[in-house]
């Protein structure tokens, strides 16, 4: 599984990454987590507000920092 965290490096983006890493660890999923900071790369996903969570190329959420339970549901 490939997970991308989209955002320029703001506090909410960092928070989403932390929560996502925790969710992956708790679920025991083998996932590669990468950060995408370049605005053009973010826009290539059609994302207009950040942070955003992309799982295997599909945007699952944008503009919010979800709970860890919500992240688990999105990446399962």
């Amino acid at each position, binding site marked *: 599984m490939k997970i991308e965290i989209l*955002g*320029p490096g*703001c*506090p*909410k*983006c960092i928070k989403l990454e932390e929560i996502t890493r925790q969710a992956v660890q708790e679920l025991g999923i083998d996932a590669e987590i990468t950060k995408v900071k370049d*605005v053009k790369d*973010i*826009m290539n*996903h*059609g*994302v*207009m*507000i*950040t*942070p*955003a969570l992309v799982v295997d190329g*599909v*945007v*699952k*959420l*944008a*503009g*919010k920092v979800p709970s860890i339970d919500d992240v688990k549901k999105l990446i399962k």
Partner: protein
Amino acid sequence: MANDCCNNSRVLLYACSGASDAGELADRAVRKLWEGGFAAKTCLAGVGADIAGFVSSARGADVNIVVDGCPVACARKSLQRIGIEPISIILADLGYKRGESAVTEEAIARVADEIKAMADSKMPAATGASSGCCC
């Protein structure tokens, strides 16, 4: 998207960009507002095509503002189709009728001012168009 994704991006702005003069006025006025930093313009076609990034962005925004040229209200209905009730502005309601609205720089500026005033009056109190940050 704004050039800086952390600039004014909690309010998203859509134009119908329809084929008529009123649709063109909507598009160009929205672009003028975007360039002026009022809100981030985004792609209505992306919502209509059900592109996940555009749909997720609309759902994550504090406010979505749609500007339609005519009462058919394609932009508003595109947002409603994905379960979002946007702030809706229809230029025909402001007197800009389809086929009777010359697209001049003066008209674009006037329409942009009217859109901004209407949107501000309908904006939730806690959400200033220029106060939000996506971060």
